[in-house]
């Protein structure tokens, strides 16, 4: 560290170039931290579990060929029975919407019936007695609905009297002991509902929604002109089951099938914008790292050209090549470090703005350290070649005039 003092005094004497580099590194650091953080948040969203056994589950929509309530119910029940009897199918349920599918319902919920109590919106699912098993949900408290408790809901006409809730929902109202919600009455859309069970994880249909973790599952068979069916295939037989179900349903004349999708497809469709944004952010990061490399490389190289004579003199006075190399690397490390320190301040300030204006979460300190480390390494890489060039300056140069 004996180089430290001369480096600092050199930097102090010719301030402007290193100062600009420091500023550039600070700005780069600010952008990098926020870009990396955005990417990580978005990528976490892409792979966030829906609570379903996505590998074996697929969904479809089909029409109900009647307008009479009684007949509609009978037809739907028959369809479900037929699908369940297929050898490639393990289970099936009829729902109002599917997690991540981007189309669904929500209801205001609360512990009381007044408008002041209804303080949060919650994702609303309906499903029959097979819903938990078909989706592969984990029931962690209470019990699921039995066959006799399922109401038929034509165009959402029926209201549930009891329901299952997600653990996220239970924690919302009973943060200290989520099990306490079991057996209590909550209000869904201003109507009382008894909580009979808690499932570990069931996400809403909108991953970017503030209330994504909070859902209720009402014991209703949702029936309309269209029904939405969720099928659980036998392990490893999803593709076969898709074919079998389509073939079975299309036997009925006038049958319409739509959106026969498995969860890879649903995720693909739901997250296409996010994927595009992530890709763009990667480009930004690549550009920034390249820019930092170029900037440091350019500066270091031309400072060395400028200092050739000085370096030659030092060499003539007995400094080894390693000394010169170390000097250049240390100088770069110091400048980069000051830049990063300034960058930490800027990044925190910028992040406060982002948090205020765009509802982003604040950046954890870990990211600051990580990105700082990366910039430090990039800086050292960029300075390698110029430093090597400097080390090779011949001592004889000092004796000659430039």
């Amino acid at each position: 560290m004996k180089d430290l003092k001369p480096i600092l005094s050199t930097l102090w004497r010719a301030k402007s170039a290193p100062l600009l580099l420091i500023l550039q590194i600070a700005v780069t650091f600010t952008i990098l931290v926020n870009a990396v953080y955005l990417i990580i948040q978005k990528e976490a969203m892409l792979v966030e579990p829906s609570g379903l056994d996505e590998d074996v589950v697929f969904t479809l929509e089909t029409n109900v060929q009647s307008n009479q309530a009684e007949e509609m119910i009978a037809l739907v029940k028959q369809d479900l029975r037929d699908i369940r009897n297929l050898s490639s199918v393990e289970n099936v349920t009829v729902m109002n919407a599917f997690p991540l599918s981007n189309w669904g319902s929500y209801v205001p919920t609360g512990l009381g019936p007044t408008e002041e109590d209804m303080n949060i919106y919650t994702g609303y699912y309906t499903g029959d007695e097979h819903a938990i098993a078909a989706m592969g949900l984990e029931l962690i408290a209470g019990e699921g609905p039995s066959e006799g408790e399922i109401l038929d809901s034509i165009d959402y006409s029926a209201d549930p009297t009891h329901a299952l809730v997600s653990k996220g929902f239970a924690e919302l109202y009973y943060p200290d002991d989520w099990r306490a919600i079991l057996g209590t009455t909550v209000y869904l859309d201003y109507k009382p509902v008894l909580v009979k069970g808690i499932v570990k994880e069931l996400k809403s249909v909108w991953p970017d929604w503030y209330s994504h973790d909070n859902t209720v599952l009402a014991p209703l068979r949702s029936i309309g002109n269209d029904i939405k069916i969720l099928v659980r295939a036998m392990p490893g037989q999803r593709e076969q089951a898709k074919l079998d179900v389509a073939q079975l349903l299309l036997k009925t004349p006038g049958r319409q099938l739509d959106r026969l999708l498995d969860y890879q497809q649903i995720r693909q469709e739901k997250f296409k914008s996010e994927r595009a944004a992530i890709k763009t952010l990667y480009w930004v990061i690549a550009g920034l790292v390249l820019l930092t490399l170029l900037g440091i490389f350019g500066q270091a190289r031309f400072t060395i050209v400028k200092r050739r004579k000085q370096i030659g003199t030092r060499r003539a006075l007995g400094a080894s090549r390693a000394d010169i190399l170390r000097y250049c690397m240390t100088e770069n490390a110091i400048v980069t470090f000051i830049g990063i320190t300034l960058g930490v301040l800027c990044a925190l300030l910028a992040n406060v703005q982002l948090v205020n204006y765009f509802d982003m979460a604040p950046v954890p300190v870990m990211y600051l350290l990580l990105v700082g480390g990366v910039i430090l390494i990039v800086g050292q890489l960029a300075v390698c070649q110029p430093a090597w060039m400097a080390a090779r300056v011949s001592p004889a140069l000092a004796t000659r005039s430039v």
Partner: protein
Amino acid sequence: MLIGYYFKLAWISLKKTPLLSILMIGTIAMGIAATMITSTVSIMMAKDPLPEKSDRVFSVRLSSWSPDKAYQLSRGEEMLPPMMTYMDTINLLEDAKGLRQSAVVMYKSMVRSEEQTEKEAKMLRFNSVNNDFFEIFDVPFLFGSPWSDSEDKKGAALVVLDKQTNDRLFGGANSVGQHIFVGPHLVRVVGVIDSWAPLPQVFQGPNRAHNLPYPLFTPFQFQVNNNLLSKGEMGWRCWTVLDDGSLESFLASECVWIRYWVELEHATQRDDYTDYINAYAEEQKSGGRFAREKPSELFDINESLIEDHVIEDDDRIAVWLAFAFLIACLLNCMGLMLIKFYGKGAEVGLRRAVGASKQHIAVQFGCETVLIGTLGGILGLTLAQLGLRLTADTFAHLPEGLMQMTTALAVLTVVLAVFSSTLFGLWPIYRATQIQPSAQLKSQ
């Protein structure tokens, strides 16, 4: 011309240190390209879809919602439902107080040509609209025209196809007068629309704002007459209990499911129309409906884009990121320029010694920064075009042709490059002019 001479000097100077020059031009180009790409994307995503008349086309909101509870609260403020009831839609359509007005709903149905069998039918999505819709939203027709007023009122079995569907069903021929099956209904084609990708697509809410419009359009009353409601697909909400699942009770209910658009002759008539819907709400109030405090509101196109959250934060964050990136690039370039001009200390000293004023030195280096900026801008423009191609691939789910830079943006790019490189060159130039002739001469 002296300026010409200076540019020649600048060119020679750039060629003398090729690596440094490439670095300077390259950084400016990168910064400019990044800024332009993100700005283009952001501008395209949030642009005014109907610039000529966006201030006189309005989304009408009427709240016949429950007296006991708000439709929705947003940051403590009550929001009106973005859709309205069938009753109100029909009343407003009959009054026809605007220059043009249209309901907009969606539904889906199996579609096939007369020759195709039922098995070949495809599930397609429709917009159910009034005939004015096409004129309100400037829909270009390739063949035919919208249906007539009387056909609109009757809900005649007519359809307008988009180009793609017409290509698929009729091989691109003029299909006006031909028939297709919509579910079990035989429907006559009255028009084919030309390529049309309004962005953002504002007329049916935020969910599909950055997608292509639905491929088919039928009269609103046709959908109602034939009970073609796809409730599992469209947005609808109720606060009253329906008597049964029938269409009649749904139509008579307070359920909201129809978006309603009106075009006025002049933006100045906005107040008149507001008075009209307020009066309508008052009149309904005497009939026992419209019990909420704020029963009606108008949003013009740009306002409804904000109200419906079509414009997303992500795009704005990206633009800020890109501008910060540009600043990083310019700082980098500034550092390089500083080195560059400093390295020419001897030359400056000599010129100063033989009588050049500080201004002369400043103009000379000014010319060099302008040259660097121009070259950087042109290279940046090329990079931006390349980048937009890549971006178009990345955003492949958006309509084609969205990611295109306008001439204005291209010119702006180069100007921005020249301006910013000159601005960031000021400090290095100032430093260069401060070089003392004597000091430099001494070291020679």
